[in-house]
């Protein structure tokens, strides 16, 4: 009998302790961010989708179409074309497409590039209604950004 009462008392006490903890948490500042109204800044190393880096001096992409990134990609989502303009010392990229539907954001492409011509975008609002929207023309995208 005594044990029974003791158990009821200690059990009830443990519940009160729990409620007290929850009550204290109620008056804490919220840790969540109200997303559509506020958004977080992504850290510098955040791996978003890839984008081409432009040379500030020439305004052209740094990419020399060496295909190393396309070969390093495990999901074969990079396709690019390049050509060598007459009189130029290096090849330039003419078409660079990323199929984002199969990209796993692993970053192997950026690592494989020896020309620092690829970087991660910090954009994470990537919802779309059509699959085609994820086949990204990185040349166009980068140009659009430059013009802004």
């Amino acid at each position, binding site marked *: 009998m005594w044990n029974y009462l003791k158990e009821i008392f*200690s*059990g*009830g006490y*443990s*519940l009160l*302790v*729990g409620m007290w*903890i*929850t009550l204290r*948490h109620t008056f804490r500042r919220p*840790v969540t961010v109200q997303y559509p109204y506020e958004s977080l800044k992504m*850290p*510098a*190393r*955040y*791996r978003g989708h890839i984008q081409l880096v432009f040379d500030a001096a020439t305004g052209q992409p740094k990419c020399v179409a060496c295909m190393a990134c396309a070969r*390093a*990609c*495990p999901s074969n989502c990079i396709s690019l074309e390049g050509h060598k303009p007459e009189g130029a010392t290096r090849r330039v990229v003419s078409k660079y497409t990323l199929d984002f539907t199969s990209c*796993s*954001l*692993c*970053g*192997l492409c950026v*690592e*494989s590039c020896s020309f620092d011509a690829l970087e*991660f975008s910090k954009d994470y609002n990537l919802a779309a209604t059509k699959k085609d929207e994820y086949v990204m023309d990185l040349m166009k995208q980068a140009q659009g950004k430059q013009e802004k």
Partner: protein
Amino acid sequence: MSIEAQTLHRETFILNLGPQHPATHGVLRIKLTLDGEYIEDAEPVIGYGHRMHEKMGENRTYAKFLPNTGRMDYVAAMFNTHGYVCAVERLAGITVPERAEFIRVITAELNRVASHLLWVGAFLIDLGGFTPLLYTFDDREQILDLLEAVTGARLTFCYYRFGGVCNDIDDDFIAGTRKFIAHLRSRMPMYHALITKNIIFRRRCEGIGPISAENCRKYGATGPVIRGSGVAYDVRKAEPYSIYPRLDFNVPVYGQGDCMARYLVRMDEIVESLRIVEQALDRLPGGPVMAEKVPRILKPPKGDCYFNVESARGSFGVRVVSDGTDKAYRMKLRSPCFSNLSLFQECSRGMLLADALALLGTLDLVIPDIDR
């Protein structure tokens, strides 16, 4: 007993638990044969999340398999990558710089803490308590923020490379981690007051779902499951790898074998992991984080290698057989969750359905890790 009474007694029905059921954390289906509320048989049906990771490992170069490793046990992705890179490094004879080993241990142990915190929250949801999940996620989020700043991703880190890690850690990370260690230590008494001492939780866990050490051995269960059954088996101690032999940490063991024991093992492991991280940060040497001269296309010499790491759920093993080309000839991935789930059928027999869910919860299953 008359025939009628016998048939009456044997009247059972079949209940599908899952594949889409809030209590199963993913696409796990369990075919339950129930006698009233008591379980006569529980047959796990797996494979809904099967993605052929082993086969994928055999038809792509070694480096291209790295992102896959984070997608098996995505709650503790560091360990899968760790096991894989260590196996390939051993095959190819690559030595990892000291600093990289330390960084690997620091990030892996942080990942273990994050995984256990997630487990505590999810397990309490299984038992019907919602609030603790919010607190554990609050703490876990801080770890993910730290790891994101270093690795660039929150779950599928893909951080380790053959010969080291891809990014060095900076002072912000070290300061943030130290702050977090102090913070989580101060939170532990709160968790114990809120959860461990709670009478409802105790009643749902103490003496429920006992797993004998014999059963653990029989089915190959590892990790907190076997340590909750009184066997001090931890790969970090049994087959030490990386810098673990140089660190001072305990392996928590509880002998009761019930849900409470497995819970306590994980809670103690959080504290031990924090100790490991702290020691590793104290002794962090300088130097490079990548070995020199690791070829871009790795071609390990012919050979066969098995490497075991202690993941958050138990022993995760990778067997790589190389035939000297740039692709593995055979890749075998031993996932801890598969073995841990295997004992469920035997151990849940005769249990109440609600108790069996508590048992299932303490196995800490990640379904894509089972299916691979």
